[in-house]
């Protein structure tokens, strides 16, 4: 490569890296403001609605009993629809035991059993099975004269280890959420229930596992919450897999002929949001209520989970045209969703573009070490510091914010430490995006269930490859 083409590559990659860094820095500055300015909003009256929890389960014997007891105790008027996706363990039996038999049985606990080969085809399919059962049950009840407007019925998706906060339903019934008839779905904040618990096998108070869980808590409660709040302005609040509440009428409107509101991608929660938004519904988000779930201690399981999410986001690229042609989504909203969908692709570009100047510098350093050293000490170190700071600050900033707003324990330096760790944590997405691309190219679209911390075993696929 001659000198002018080297200069060209360097100039091109530096400009691209600068544009991507500046775009991200600007984006973070814009989303931090609404997050810091948030004040709790007045709750509504949960009794104005009927609530149905859908809990998809596959081999969840470790957690399902406690979850069901918690939900029944905290929300006594809500129905639980536990969807057993042909578990190999005692999940179904435990639910049956909870429900009881005969005249004294709990009419608010429903077990939906799926069987292979029609089971284990993805979380979306399991939720669709729950939706259809709920619809049939409501139809039968309506036939007996218990009809209720589907606008007044809310379906709540929680994971088998999910713990919605006791105020969850009241908060979601508020005027600005389901109290507004245009709101089709609401996503609540997500917390990690084990954020203060070290892993069982940890010998010290600090461990990689507990740090990983802390970072997941920080990510959801600070960065993701801020993104969701800013989406209120773009009208593109997205749905998550846990703590996802949807009005039944909204689900009906996107269910189609096969009565399946959730579709087949690995990111069925985001997909549902896209369908709702393009059908004209608004979506809401609140940090005034939350759902707690278990954070992952294992790096391997974490990477597997994020690979699945990255692959799901890549699959959802197919919705770009639908989003941009929807009359309900503004250009700003469509641009925001495009930016979100472009994230894994930008990470792929980033892994190629960002190292190029450093590789070229390394080559030059091997050839002319003295010249390069003089160049660095003559001032290039300031350039590295400036660009390094701009590259890391958008991540580091979340540490002190999380410490101040969410978990104020210890001194402020702890917040800075969280921020620095979060910057390292985020760079794991560069690995998962490549893994996701590899899986996409190989046509491996199966769903590897993220195992609970208490479960042992490998990460073999538990759903058929399509």
């Amino acid at each position, binding site marked *: 490569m001659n000198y002018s083409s080297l*200069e*060209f590559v*360097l*100039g*091109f990659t*530096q*400009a*691209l890296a*600068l*544009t991507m*860094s*500046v*775009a991200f*820095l*600007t984006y973070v500055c814009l989303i931090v403001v609404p997050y810091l300015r948030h004040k709790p909003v007045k709750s509504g009256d949960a009794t104005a609605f009927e609530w149905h929890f859908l809990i998809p389960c596959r081999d969840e014997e470790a957690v399902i009993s406690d979850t069901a007891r918690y939900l029944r105790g905290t929300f006594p008027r809500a129905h639980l629809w536990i969807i057993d996706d042909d578990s190999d363990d005692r999940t179904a039996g435990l639910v049956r035991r909870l429900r009881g038999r005969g005249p004294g049985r709990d009419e608010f606990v429903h077990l939906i059993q799926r069987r292979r080969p029609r089971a284990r085809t993805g979380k979306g399919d399991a939720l669709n099975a729950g939706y259809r059962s709920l619809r049939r049950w409501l139809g039968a009840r309506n036939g007996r004269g218990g009809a209720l407007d589907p*606008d007044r019925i809310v379906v709540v998706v929680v994971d088998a280890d999910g713990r919605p906060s006791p105020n969850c339903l009241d908060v979601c019934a508020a005027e600005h959420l389901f109290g*507004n*008839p*245009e*709101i*089709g779905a609401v996503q609540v904040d997500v917390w990690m229930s084990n954020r203060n618990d070290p892993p069982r096998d940890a010998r010290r108070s600090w461990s990689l596992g507990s740090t990983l869980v802390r970072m997941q808590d920080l990510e959801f409660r600070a960065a993701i919450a801020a993104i969701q709040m800013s989406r209120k302005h773009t009208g593109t609040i997205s749905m998550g897999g846990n703590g996802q509440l949807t009005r039944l*009428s*909204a689900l009906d*409107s996107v269910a189609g002929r096969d009565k399946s509101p959730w579709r087949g991608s690995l990111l069925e929660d985001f997909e549902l949001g896209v369908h709702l938004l393009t*059908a*004209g*519904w*608004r979506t809401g988000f609140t940090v005034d209520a939350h759902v707690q779930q278990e954070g992952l201690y294992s790096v391997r399981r974490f990477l597997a989970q994020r690979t699945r999410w990255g692959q799901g986001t890549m699959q959802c690229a197919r919705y*770009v*045209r639908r989003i*941009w*042609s929807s*009359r*309900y989504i*503004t*250009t*700003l909203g*469509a*641009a925001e969703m*495009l930016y979100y969908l472009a994230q894994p692709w930008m990470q792929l570009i980033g892994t190629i573009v960002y190292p190029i100047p450093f590789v070229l510098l390394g080559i030059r350093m091997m050839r002319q070490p003295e010249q390069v050293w003089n160049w660095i000490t*003559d*001032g*290039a170190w*300031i*350039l590295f510091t*400036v*660009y390094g700071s*701009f590259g890391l600050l958008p991540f580091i900033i979340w540490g002190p914010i999380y410490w101040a707003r969410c978990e104020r324990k210890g001194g402020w330096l702890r917040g800075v430490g969280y921020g620095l760790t979060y910057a390292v944590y985020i760079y794991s997405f560069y690995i998962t995006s490549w893994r996701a691309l590899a899986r996409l190219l190989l046509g491996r679209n199966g769903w590897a269930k993220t195992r609970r911390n208490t479960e042992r075993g490998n990460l073999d696929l538990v759903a058929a490859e399509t």
Partner: protein
Amino acid sequence: MLLAAGLVVMAAALVVFHTAYRTAEVMLAGIVVRSATSSGVHVSGGRQTIYFGLGSPTPFGLRMTPECTSAFLLLPLLLIGAGMILLRPAVTRRVASALLVAAAVVVTVNQLRVLTLVGLINWLGTDRGYYWGHTFFGSMVSVFGGAVALILFVWLATRRSRAERRAGEPPRPGSEH
């Protein structure tokens, strides 16, 4: 559609003819620097270099390298603009005007960066002026200028027109009930 294709062609032209672009950019820098300094200024278009401080004790030459040009900063804007027009043709006019404004900001910011360098060299001398101008202040101007250009582009390209605001939003499922 035609404009989107034109923008893609422009982006490709920026890559292929970046030397010509840098020549034009350094000529413009010559005009800007001449208007701001009293000492002699000479532009060598063929070398994409501007000489200033001629006749003073600290003459200096700055080359507009591929790393310093604004050409590659315009590239993503052109491609994003083309994508937006393809995906939502109704925003063509808005995206075109947003591109014009953002491109003007990017070009101006790069001129401002050159001017900052010239000013610092005049003020602090060749070594210290270039040292701080090329490293810290130059980068600051690029980063903040880039942020302003991006915000302007997004704001101008995505804001709703007065007619759209007057017409209000299309009816939504909940409001029809």
